[in-house]
């Protein structure tokens, strides 16, 4: 079963990487770019049959290891 975790930095916290990338895009002439924000995805292939159980397990992994709940929000999604 394939479960996807989407992780983004909590609102309000700065995203220096996004700021610098936006600057670089503007240097390349993309003036219409208003903002750039970075996030991460982690795809977990897990040997499970029940989607609910899989989602449950991966959410637990997020709390313990995959995400940093202090500065990040995460979303768990069972793909197939």
């Amino acid at each position, binding site marked *: 079963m394939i479960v996807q975790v989407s992780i983004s*930095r909590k609102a*309000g*916290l*700065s*995203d*220096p990487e996004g700021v*610098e990338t936006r*600057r670089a895009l503007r240097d390349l002439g993309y003036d219409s770019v208003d903002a750039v924000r970075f996030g991460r995805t982690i795809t977990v292939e897990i040997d499970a049959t029940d989607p609910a159980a899989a989602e449950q397990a991966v959410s637990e992994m997020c709390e313990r290891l995959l995400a*940093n709940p*202090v*500065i990040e929000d995460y979303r768990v999604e069972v793909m197939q």
Partner: protein
Amino acid sequence: MTAELHRELGMSDGEYEAVVDLLDRTPEPAELAMYSVMWSEHCSYKSSRAWLGRFPTEAPWVVVGPGENAGVVDLGDGWLAALRIESHNHPSFVEPYQGAATGVGGILRDIFTMGARPVAVWDAIRFGPLDEARNRYLLGGVVSGIAGYGNAVGVPTLGGEVEFAGCYSHNPLVNVMALGLLRREQLVLSAASGEGNVAVLLGAATGRDGIGGASILASASFDADAGAKRPSVQIGDPFEEKKLIEACLELYGRGLVVGIQDLGAAGISCAASECAAGGGMGMDVDLDTVPLREQGMTPGEILMSESQERMLAIVQPNDVAEVLALAEKWEIDAAAIGTVTTGGSLRVFHENRLVAQVPAASLSENAPLYRRSATRPADLDTVWASGPVLPDTVDAAAALRSLLGDPALGDRSWIYEQYDHQLFLNTVVEPGHDGALLRIKGTEKGLAVSTDGDGLRCALDPRRGGARILWEAALNVAVTGARPYAVVDNLNFGSPENPEVMWHFVETVEGMAEACEALGVPVVGGNVSFYNETDGVSIHPTPVVGMLGFCDPMPARSPRLDRAAAGMGVWVIGPEPVDDFAGSAFARIVLGNESGRPTAPDPAMGTAAVAAAVELAGSSPVLHDISAGGLALALAEICIRSGVGVRVEVEDWRALFTEAPHRLVAVLPPNTEPGPGVPAQRIGTMGGETIDLIPFGSLPLEEATQIWRAALRGKME
């Protein structure tokens, strides 16, 4: 309503009344926010100020003492060194990576605010035992945060120290020291002189970072749920800081700044008031000109924001254009946000409304001063009486195995190999020995630094413990050939409102001051971190010192732990060892005892040992002070690093493990002797594949090496 607000902001009713008297009216919210942070323990040192005066701060070579952003000492030929140490304890517990990273960023700004180029960083860090996953997570996060920021900002990290004890489990300590170099003519201070001069804000855009963070995070104890503090986490941007460093150094080089101040706790309000007060002036600040990262920020938020990587430069009106152009070259934001005025009041405008008007000096000068009561801990005598009971004999090999396997005593390269420790091509003695040694290119001058603390010993006897960390730090720099030259200190304690903690504090300061006087080294700066307690449990009283050593010329070849070879003689330098097991590694690890009373340092012996070390550093391939783990561990470290065994003989096993101060091991070429006037005793010879501690045991070098390498690495990988 304000009555509640001041409490929310962590102000006592008495402090609130003081503000009302001072302004002679009810303060506006923005004003109250300013006082609450500027008068917090973190910013005002209200509980410690009364005692810090005890430190000796003067010497002919001191150019700038405590009070400015960093201390500055004279190295001759127009060279100056700037140094400072600071703690980032609570933020590193809330978010280890960012907490440690922003700690590095903050201490670096203290250095280049003085006109110096930051050339090195050291980290002194303390955690709970590594068998708890949470503590491994904290250590890993702190180390990668220091690496992530320090390496990217382009300042090498040349060492530090690490300790583990239960009291740090919910309150790790992260103290970071930085060193900078500058030419005398580059020295800049923070004072803003000159009516009409312009205050230019340089660096990152301002967001809602760590609003009130200084007071909330640094001045209030933790309850176990750190969750409530999460919003105050700040994200470090080493790239922004790197550009800021280069931009500021170019500004100084072109003589474009009258004064400058970094933005830390209390953000703009602190920087503006300190610049103004420092020059006996006032300042008008227009918040509408501040580049913002977020919409809808209140005046209070803009004023108090602790967004990282920002500086406030005082510039003459006709230089402003050039300053802004230079900022643009380095791709950093810059905006004229204020004007220096006469009359001494700080006036803050927002949307053309006056939102705050306070006497600039009052934020620092009228800060409360508390002489808190100090009482000797009730159980102290019992603790002193229940020290380690020494066996008649020990299996020295078994004991050495346990010491080598301790994560605080074994190989620490898992930490310092994550730090760039070579950038700038100055590193002559890298981390992994005693003090680190840097050269100053184009001169014969060398600078050595060691950071040292000893929580357990200070808990057992804060006065003796506080003194002894200075004596150890002095030997750590002396073995590189440098003489102790200046000290910065970081005092990490529990709540000052607890009389026993306050007693520890006062005793520690006394012991440290006495040692500094005996060593003849001035304290040029420091930092106090109180409220290091969780659920009412305090950490050990944990003073940390950063000792700067100076030599001119440097030894042609400084001693290193890895330069011993078969056939070389092994000597012990210093006084006859007394039993010193209270708080020793042997007592803690082998006997499982953490009580008793450590022996007092001996200033006469101590200064003699330091002088002897400086002298011997010119000729010894290896020179290593005897500290935690005693003679046995010092020898083992030399053997492991040099890849050669040793054979020594001692009469009493205690000589192998006592941590009696002021002693060193010297390894000298065959048929050479330590010079006259140095109390020295030959105890054996390097060679073979075993560490022979005759007649108390023998350990194969191979086995010792494996245990030592795995001590920390094995727990973290």
